């Protein structure tokens, strides 16, 4: 598959068979019908991406200058640290750098985006207005350096409502009563959104020593007590802030609801790390004014 409009023939035949399939639980299915949403098909999107960390687009090694900011591409995050010890030896890590691995982010987004595009394509094929109860996963395929992106959701038609603009269905991670409450609160789902940030921490001497406890009485650095490992803290903060910024760029002025955040750390050497942060959630837009619900009544269950 190379893009939209090329669903396998069998898939098209199955989707046109007249019966529906749904990934909803029975309670969610009931709530869905109650809301006037008619399930029309369990739709999915796949994409298998080869994962070459230092492939095309990567600078392969760390940046060539402690002063430069060009490692991850234009406007990418980069921060550098310089050794406080002076000339020690050729092996001494005289400078360190944190930088955004934009090529990793692009590859991930390509995988996620392709799977999402194919999910939408299947939903359009069955004339859906929206996709609810979306789940997405990404994991390695067998022993290969390949990641599978898989998205799944239930395509629905809103009874007696016009088709969405351009025929593109809206999508949401929510389903059932949670979706009903979202609508009651005056929010309409627009689409599921995900963003990733990948930050490489290339440690300088102090970070290396501090991560191994070799500062103070037993090591370099002159410090005699605990201290913050600034380069690593900054790397973690940058990964999270960048992921948030990446989803913000897709949001416009809408709201990202129910964000789930996943982080991963991979140690690649003494003090060296790859830090990743992924955010996903449902982009929602207010379709009616703010109308606070009545103060809920506290209850105690007798059971």
């Amino acid at each position, binding site marked *: 598959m190379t893009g939209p409009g090329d669903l396998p023939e069998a898939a098209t035949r199955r989707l046109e068979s007249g019966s529906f399939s749904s990934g909803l*639980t029975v309670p969610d299915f009931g709530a869905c019908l109650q809301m006037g949403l008619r399930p029309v098909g369990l739709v999915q999107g796949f994409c298998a991406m080869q994962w070459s960390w230092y492939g095309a687009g990567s600078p392969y090694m760390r940046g060539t200058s402690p002063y430069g900011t060009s490692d991850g591409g234009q406007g990418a995050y980069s921060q550098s640290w310089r050794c406080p010890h002076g000339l020690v030896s050729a092996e001494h890590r005289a400078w360190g750098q944190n930088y955004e691995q934009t090529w990793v982010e692009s590859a991930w987004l390509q995988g996620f985006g392709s799977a999402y595009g194919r999910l939408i394509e299947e939903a359009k094929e069955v004339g859906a207005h929206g996709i609810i109860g979306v789940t997405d996963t990404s994991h390695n395929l067998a022993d290969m350096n390949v990641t599978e992106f898989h998205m799944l959701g239930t395509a629905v038609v809103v009874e007696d409502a016009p088709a969405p603009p351009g025929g593109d269905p809206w999508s949401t991670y929510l389903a059932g009563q949670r979706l009903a409450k979202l609508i*009651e609160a005056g929010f309409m789902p627009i689409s599921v959104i995900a963003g990733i940030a990948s930050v490489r921490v290339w440690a300088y001497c102090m970070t290396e020593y501090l991560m191994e*406890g070799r500062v103070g009485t037993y090591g370099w650095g002159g410090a005699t007590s605990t201290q913050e490992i600034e380069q690593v803290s900054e790397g973690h903060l940058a990964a999270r802030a960048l992921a948030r910024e990446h989803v913000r760029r897709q949001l416009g*002025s809408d709201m990202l609801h129910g964000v789930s955040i996943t982080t991963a750390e991979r140690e690649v050497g003494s003090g060296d790390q790859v830090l990743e942060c992924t955010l996903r959630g449902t982009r929602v837009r207010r379709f009616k004014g703010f109308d*606070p619900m009545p*103060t809920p009544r*506290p209850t105690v269950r007798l059971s």
Partner: protein
Amino acid sequence: MSPDSPLPIDVRAEMRSAAAWLADGGAAPNGRAVTSDLTIDEALLLHSIGWEPVELVFGVSVTSVPVGVWTWGRGEIGAASDAHNLAVHTAAERLGRECAKAGGHGVVGVQVSVEVNPHHVDVHLVGTAVRPVEGKKPGQTFVSDLSARDFVLLSNAGWSPLGLSFGASFIYAPRRDAATAIRQSSQNIELTNLTEALYSARESAMERMQASGLAMSAQGVVGVRITEGPMRFARHVIGFTAWGTAVRLVADNHVYLKPDMVLPLDDAVVQFEAQSLRGR
């Protein structure tokens, strides 16, 4: 639903009207985008007391622990306790700063992750900055690990969260002498060296947590959570950490919430998630 309207919302009509609005172009609002990790229930609860989410905010700090501190010794391992406290305070301060920068009045539902490693302590805090819908003047920014539900209950009861209170202590369990160890090896007997280390670590950690609450002029700490036991990489060291949200009564008196008693008549229902399709 307005507070005066007793009629339930016709969700089918609402859905249809939302879909028609979207088909008609669905104009996006003006202003800055909002990010939030609150569930829809939590967002609605916040709305019920006139608050709204503003931004997903983060606070992280990684601090060093000098090599050699976990080997045998006596008393408290001051360097480890200091590293823990420094990491927690720095991360919480950053979280508060991000909240203030985003225009929030406080952070709720903070997920606290603390990992003590042999050579560094990692603290990660994630939460949602919130503010009143009617632009009230912000007081001091608070950070709280209470859920939005707990925040609403606390507010309705006349209390206000002030910040996260933390305390930690790491204590060497004193060695028994050889004769005692041999004598006790065939007995069912309390190992007082370990019990005493637990008590000692507990007292120091709880005292620090309460002291950090008092420093915020708190009257108490609610939702206290603790971890305790030997460190996985140094079994002769007992670690004890405690944290919770420091609170203060801001109303004249505590407001009793008068909950109604309900007796559910339905059977317990097994809940499913879409993820179950994947066999999980």
